[in-house]
Every structure is written in C-alpha cells, then in structure tokens.
C-alpha cells in the first residue's frame, strides 16, 4: 500500500471510530496515543495529499457511519463523535481550502425565543459541521430580530437557517422568524425541528420540516444542490 493510501485509510478508520485526536479512545477503550483525525489530516496535507482527496475519504467514512447508525450498531453519541472528528479535520483543512478559493457553506442555527432546550439544536449543529458546513450557532432563547440581523449581516453566504424548539408554547416563535424574514424580503430556507414540531406546523409557517437532526443535515445538503 502506498503511504498516501495508508494515511487516507487511517483517516477513514478514525472518522468511523470518532477519534478526533490522539487523546481519544476507540470503542474498545484502546488507541489512546495513536494519531486521530486531526493529526492524520495534518500529516496527509504535509504528505502532499490534496484536500479534495481527503474530503472524499471523510465523506466515505461518514457514509459508513450513517449505515452503522441505521442498522442500530451505532448510537447517537457514536454519530456525534464521528461528526466531531470530521469537524476537527475540516478545521485543519480550512486554510488549504481557502487557498484554492473553496469556502464552507454557512448555516445559522438557533433555539427560538423563550426556549432554552438546546440538545437537539447542538446535535444538529455538530452534524452540520461533520457534513462540512460552517455553523453560526446563535445559542438559545434567540429573538427573531437577532436572527434576522445575523442573516442580513452574512447575507449572500448563508445557505439556510435551522430553528429548534422543544415546547409547544415557544414553537410559535418559529413562525415569527419566518414572518420577519419575509417582511425583510429575504427568501432564506428555514429548517425546523424539535419534539413538538410537525410537518403541518412547518407547512403553515412556510418552513421545511425535519423529523430529526439527521434529516436536517440531508435537507441542508439539498439546499446547496438547489443553490
């Protein structure tokens, strides 16, 4: 096996294991001290492997992770660990990508006003990073005004907005956000999710319904394709 192939195989393996760096253990509790995605991506770049190849290999790895998740072999924390490992790898890659004029797609995420339940939003943010997005995480209890302001400031670069809410009472504030965006004349796609949110509700406020964070990432990718 050529050295370049070997290192790419290792990157793939470590993404699947969810090992960000040498301090992380694998599923059996071993591998501590061995290079993780961060070190391996760095090594690959130094070894003159192009970022495109590395990204391809990371994408392959995430397909494997997705399959393991679907069959039940992988649990949510495994998926998140892999996404986190990818996110770390992408940070190492970023300067190289900028050199060739490649920029990450930006995505705004927030838990809407009145709601502080952010586990779902955090999972979504991590999964987005794992899928190669630059995520602007606005946190919890975020007002519609603030969201619109952020989107405006970054306009032209934002691919979409992801909103979450756990409570039926705060869910209505998602409608306020879509309403405000329309008032400002911004035709940004809004993904909504959370325990109380339904397809009917999403349709009513003119948003895209996501049953969970994984569907959210798929929908976000579709937005890029649509351009």
């Amino acid at each position, binding site marked *: 096996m050529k050295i370049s192939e070997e290192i790419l195989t290792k990157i793939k393996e470590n993404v699947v294991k*969810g090992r960000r760096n040498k301090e*992380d*253990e694998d*599923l059996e*509790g071993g591998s501590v001290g061995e290079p993780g995605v961060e070190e391996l991506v760095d090594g690959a770049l130094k070894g003159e492997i192009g970022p495109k190849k590395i990204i391809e290999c990371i994408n392959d790895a995430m397909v494997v992770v997705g399959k393991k998740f679907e069959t039940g072999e992988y*649990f*949510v*924390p*495994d998926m*998140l*660990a892999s996404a*986190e490992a990818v996110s770390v790898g992408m940070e190492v890659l970023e300067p190289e990508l900028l050199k060739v004029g490649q920029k990450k797609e930006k995505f705004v995420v927030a838990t809407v006003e009145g709601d*502080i339940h952010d*586990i779902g939003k*955090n*999972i979504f943010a*991590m999964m987005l990073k794992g899928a190669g997005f630059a995520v602007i995480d606005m946190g919890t209890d975020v007002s519609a005004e603030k969201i619109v302001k952020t989107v405006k400031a970054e306009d032209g670069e934002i691919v979409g907005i992801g909103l979450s809410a756990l409570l039926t009472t705060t869910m209505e504030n998602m409608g306020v956000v879509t309403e405000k965006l329309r008032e400002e004349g911004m035709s940004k796609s809004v993904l909504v999710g959370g325990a109380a949110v339904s397809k009917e509700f999403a349709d009513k406020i003119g948003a895209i319904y996501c049953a969970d964070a994984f569907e959210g990432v798929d929908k976000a990718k579709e937005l890029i394709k649509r351009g």
Partner: protein
Amino acid sequence: MSREIKKGFSGGQYKPLSAYDVGRIHETAFRILDEIGVRVELKEALDIFERGGAEVEVNRGEKIVRISSELVEAMVKSAPSKIVLGGREKENDLVLEGTRVHMGTGGAALNVIDIDSGEKRKGTLRDIADIAKLADALGNIHFFVRPCIAQDIPIEDLVVNQFYAGLSNTTKHVMSGCDNAEKVEEVVEIAELIAGGEVKDRPPLSFITCWMDSPLCFASNVTKALIEVVKKDLPVILSSAPIAGLTSPITLAGTLVQLHAEELSGIVFTQLINPGAPVVYGGIPSMADMHNLRYIAGGMEFGMMNAAISQLSQSIGLPNYNSAGITDAAIPDIQAVYEKAHSICQCALSGSNLIHHAAGMLESMLTVDYGQYVIDNEIIGMAMRGVRGIEVNEDTEALDEIKRVGHGGDYLRSKHTRRHMRTEFFEPMLASREEREDKDKQGLRDIRELAKSKVKEVLDTHTPVEIDPEVDRRIRERFNIL
C-alpha cells in the same frame, strides 16, 4: 441474532422471607421429619435409610422413615455447595453456587403450538430438536431442559432420544427427566462419549428426578432411578412440586415447610447412598385453583414461593432449582407475559441457580409455543439486568463528568457515555420504542409476529456446533437414535 450470554450474575435482592422466617421454617421442617417422617415403600431405599441411622417403623402397613435433625444436619453438610454443569462448549458451563442466577427452558409439555399453522398439536421429537436449536441461538437462555414429551416415538426410546435431541442441537447444558433406572446407564454412556471420558467434573447433561410424591411420599420407580444417578456421581435435581391447597397446606408458609422437609429427606437419602454426591435442592411449589382444582403457576404467590425456595436452599448452602415463567394463559396474550415477567423477576432477583420453565411455556405447562421462546428470552434478559444491579463506583458515579458538563450541558458528546452506553442499558431485541405514527407506517406489527419471524430465521439459518461426527456415529451405533 445470537447475543452475548449474560449469565451467572449474583442475585439475592428479593427476599420474601425474613431471616426469622427462614429459621422458623427450617425448625418446623425438622419437626416434620422427626415427628411425621416420610413414607418409603421401596425396599432398597428403606435399607439405605435404616443403615444410615434413620428410624424406620411400620404404621398401619405404611413404612415410615423418621429422620432426626442431627442426621439431617450432618448429611446437608456432606452435600457440595458448588456444582459445575458443563456445556458442550465451555463458555456455556454453569457454576451453581450462592446466588448465581441461570435461566433455562423446561417442561414436560404435551402440546406444541405449530409454528406454521398456529394450531395446537402433540409434541414430537423434532420439536425438541428445533426448540434446542432455538435455545442455542437465544443468548438469555442459559441451559436446556427438554421442553415437551415426544409423543411420536416408542416409549422405550424416549429417555435416550429426548436427551440426544437436545445434546445434538445445543452446546448449552442439557437436562431431562428420568424415571427409569435401567435407562440411567445408557444416558451416562452418552454423556461419557460426548465428554470423551470422565463426566464427573463438568457433565454435559444432568438428570431431573421427580422422586417425591407430595405430601411426604417417596415415589418408588423414580427413587430407583435416583439411586442409580447418585451412584454414578452425576448431579441430580431433587424435584418436588407440592400444590398448595391440594398436596400441601393452602398457606404459602405451610407449603414451604412441607416442601423444605421433603427436600431435606431427599438430600439425606442421596448423601447416605454416596457421601458428597452433587445434589440440587429442587423445590417447585405451586397452587391449586380452588374453584376447579386446576394447577396454577401464573399467580403472584407462585413467584413468591419459588423465590422463597432460593432463600431456603441458600440457608443450607446448597444449589437450587425452581420454576418461573409459567403462565396459566392458554395463548400467547397479554396475561401470558405479565404473569411470566412477575415470576421470572421474582426468582431471578432471589438468586435462584437454575430457573427452569423460564421460556416458551403456556397453559399451565401443558403447551409450548415457538414464538414465546423469543419473547421470554427478552423478559429473561430484562430480569438478568435487574439481577446485575446498579454498579456504584468512582467511574459509574461520574463525578468528573458531572463537573465537566456543568450546568445545562448534555452528556451526548462525552467519552464516558460512549464507554458505558452499550452495556449500561439492556438492549431489547423485540421491544418497540417508536411513536404510534412510526408504527402505523410499518403496519403496526404485533410483537408475536416479530417473534415468529425470528424463530423462522433461527431455524433456517442457525447451525449449532455439531457433535464430533465420529462420536455421533458411535452413539447411533450403540443406541436407537431416531
């Protein structure tokens, strides 16, 4: 679909009897043996008792053996407190000791619910083989007791074939009843052929002898078989099954006192034959339905009494065998599973060493059902998780993690979570945890259908490790294997 076998965890969390109760029952059982005695008609058995120092008297033509508490205590001491039952593969060995819990199949059911037609029909030798194969694949079933009576073969071939249908289809320990002294030799020969010689240390099979005809009578035929097994130094289960209200007092305590006395008389008997012979305290108390005198094993009291049996055997330091998972429901319905779940949990948590009948049974032991084995495998798995208990130590308390996550964070991205999440929660094979809408999309599949499809998957795809073809050839040459 075979999962990691989780057996032998130590139970003892559930104690229906207080220490005082246990002591009192023990003392009263002594009085039964001393004042009332057991009836023994078999000459050979009477001689054994007489030579051993028990008092034999003839009372209105009945031969009564009275046993002093001194003799009981001495004989109980001579019986081993630890017995190893072998599997054809070593990983399936069972170490019977203390409160270590193992669960298996059981029964002498007459009927089987046919997997294809769903109709109730007579049990066959093929059923024993297929159910052994199923038990081999199901990770929470730890040993195999012949589940039904093969009614399609001649009676003279029954004992050997029932054992061999089990042995050739599972590498788990195989148990079966034996009420025929002449057949003991043959079965032991099979055990030796399979083990490749001496079987004393970890025998691949063991005998269940229902030697006691409650109340307080030795059954002559089975006692003959019992003597043969004990002479061979093979582990033997002393199975006694009084029915409260019918063959023992209606009160739970009364049934336990009588049963304890019966077991003690059996233990004394085995130790007089062969001091140090491995013997298992096999009390299976049940109840009679006072409306119609039907056998009841699905009631709460069944689990309570069988759990109490663990306490009584533990108090004299002997391994035990009892029953759980029997239901009085005739079909695999909701009643079946709630009755099963209760007694399985009760017996498991009481620390029983060999809980048989724990999978597959329906209709007060008259019937076994293929799909039910898969469902019960799941109930047993949950119960074993309960037995394993809550581990409390520095790592599981996770103080460092709580510090790290702090206020309002989550534990989803923590290494500690990944390290423990696969073992901390029991992972069900059948249970659905989906919302109604998602289930509707899949056509609202009943768990019984799911269980049936698992059965078919196992029967089509699972290949138990086979017996060495040369050994199999020799066994078939020697015996009429059908």
